[in-house]
């Protein structure tokens, strides 16, 4: 009875309940790149496998994901690029809107998927277990407070899961651009938000895109992606029309909810007034934020392990949930962004050194408190 509990691989406990393993095999009515989840949820990948895992499967179809940018760091572009590249690789229809004269040029910066190799597989299994320079002997003495690093990652046989994972989500090599022939497909559209004074044109384009490509009748489930960069950027003509922007997001949310699409919107929240910022945050189904990290900061280097490799922080404020009253509560909501081998993006939980090494039982508290204290001090 005790052993029966571990069938899903999700619980290590001893209960007689067993979690039904989520079927990751693509059924005949779904296409590649779409995964079914509990409660009738359908997921598409965000392009970053770690983020999919953190959000419980990926981006929920029919939801609006909003990312709060940090004006000091361009990491929201990494998220957007991975999201768009994943859609292109899976041949899903894509609409991109950006505050530049030539949004098509942004497509040239999309990364190509990493050619999978055994070494990558091994790296994944080891995960955050070893520090980047492999100083495990040093770490051995401080392992007690870093115990969370060694649990929680996928302990089940990684090889078989890897194949399924490759179909659903890819690791992207940020140094290699995506092949041109993939980008010249018919179902990739671009629109510039810099011209024009109103959001009417963008709204019309979104609605035609959604009705053209995605109908919820029978047949193959094609998932669509809408990516909007810096919706309230100062160079957009509608920048000062706060209420227009809010009603655009509301109507986009309604359009997306009744279609098989995910919309990812990034916005520099420092530019909005605080009351409107609250409204935007409230409208999001999934809310993430990026925070820049100061360079060559000795104090942070002492407090955080792996500080040298970090390029920023990602904070998860809200995760979309459908057909359920149960909210998603994450164990940790602040993650560090790292570039593994300088090419693929990984998200790791923060491992914060205890200030006072002698405090025993408070380490567990500190691991979770640290993420919230990080949050409050660093103004997430």
């Amino acid at each position: 009875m005790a052993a029966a509990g571990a069938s899903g691989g999700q619980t290590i406990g001893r209960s007689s309940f067993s979690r039904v393993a989520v079927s990751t095999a693509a059924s005949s009515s779904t296409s590649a790149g779409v995964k079914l989840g509990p409660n009738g949820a359908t997921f598409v990948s965000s392009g970053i496998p770690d983020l999919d895992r953190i959000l419980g499967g990926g981006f929920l179809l029919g939801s609006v994901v909003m990312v709060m940018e940090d004006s000091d760091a361009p990491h929201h572009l990494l998220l957007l690029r991975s999201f768009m590249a994943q859609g292109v690789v899976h041949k899903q229809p894509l609409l991109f809107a950006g505050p530049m004269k030539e949004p098509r040029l942004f497509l040239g910066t999309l990364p190509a998927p990493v050619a999978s190799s055994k070494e990558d597989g091994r790296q994944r299994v080891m995960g955050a277990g070893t520090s980047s320079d492999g100083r495990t002997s040093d770490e051995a003495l401080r392992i007690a407070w870093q115990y969370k690093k060694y649990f929680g990652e996928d302990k089940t046989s990684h090889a078989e899961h890897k194949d399924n994972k490759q179909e659903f989500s890819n690791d992207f090599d940020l140094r290699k651009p995506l092949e041109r022939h993939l980008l010249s497909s018919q179902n990739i559209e671009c629109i510039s938000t810099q011209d024009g004074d109103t959001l009417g044109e963008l709204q019309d384009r979104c609605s035609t895109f959604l009705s053209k490509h995605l109908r919820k009748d029978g047949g193959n489930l094609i998932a669509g992606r809408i990516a909007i960069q810096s919706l309230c950027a100062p160079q957009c003509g509608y920048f000062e029309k706060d209420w227009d922007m809010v009603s655009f997001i509301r109507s986009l949310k309604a359009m997306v909810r009744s279609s098989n699409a995910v919309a990812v919107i990034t916005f520099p929240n420092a530019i909005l007034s605080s009351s409107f910022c609250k409204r935007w945050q409230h409208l999001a189904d999934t809310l993430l934020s990026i925070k820049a990290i100061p360079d060559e900061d000795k104090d942070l280097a002492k407090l955080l392990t792996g500080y040298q490799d970090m390029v920023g922080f990602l904070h998860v404020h809200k995760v979309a949930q459908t057909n359920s009253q149960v909210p998603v509560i994450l164990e940790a909501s602040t993650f560090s962004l790292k570039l593994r081998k300088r090419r693929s993006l990984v998200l790791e939980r923060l491992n914060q050194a205890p200030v006072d090494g002698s405090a025993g039982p408070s380490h567990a508290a500190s691991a979770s408190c640290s993420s919230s204290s990080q949050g409050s001090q660093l103004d997430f």
Partner: protein
Amino acid sequence: MAEAAVRYLRDGRLEGEHAPALSVSGSLQCCPLAARAMLHVTAALASQAASGKSQARGLVIVAFDRSPEVYLDFMRRRGLDPNTFNRCVRILDCYSDPIGWKQKIQSQQHQESSVEPCSMDKENVTIFRSVKDVDKLMCSIIDLGRGFEGEGKIYFTIAIESISSMLKHASVSSISGLLSNLRSHDQTSSIFWLIHSDLHEPKFSRAFECLSTMVASVEPAVVDSVYEEEIPGNMSFLEKNYSNAKFYVRLKRRNGRVKHLYEELCVEGNDVKFISSPSVSAEVNQNLLPKVGLYISSSI
């Protein structure tokens, strides 16, 4: 550090990226010092361009706040001779007659346009009379930049002084559009501007910070902790704040990390000096550190 800022702008843009942009912002209490810092950076970049050490061949100054002679004067005192000045610097004069009224008045009165106020040689000064038309302003800036001589691809640096004056005539979105278009223009090596952050809504000042890759803020040296501003009538405060200020630089690096630098700015006569002061940088770090100790004690 001011030298770091100048070097960063001097090195210019990399292939495939937008030009680096520096935003110098000052509050009203120390706005003359912010303007001086801006002048210092302008002169430094002009001399770098003149000696061929920078990616840019020349500097285009879009002058809203000062008359062109001020620049010539300052740079001459810095050691840049007038010939080099003419070769490497072009000034778009938006100060003398920004909306074309003087011209209208003169033509209405049918007076012969007698000697122009600036009697210096005008080959590198172009008077611009329609500052409300941001597209025309952009074309004029680019035309001036293309006018520099040299072989191969000609890069130029743009200095805008100041954005606060531009905002009197045009909207935030049109000026932001201008700045981002200039940054993405393939002949721009770097761009920097001055903004008085107190004069605008905080979200507009932040919008311009968003557009930059490096932010230098000039803050008053002495601030009264009780009133958080100068005690009126107290001369020592005024004197200190008119000649000293704190110069914070926030550099957004390409890998997404932010470098914080700090110096003290001293103005003595016509000279602007920057003194590095490592002791205060710890203060900057203190604010960024999460106060873990506090939380642990309260959770036990």
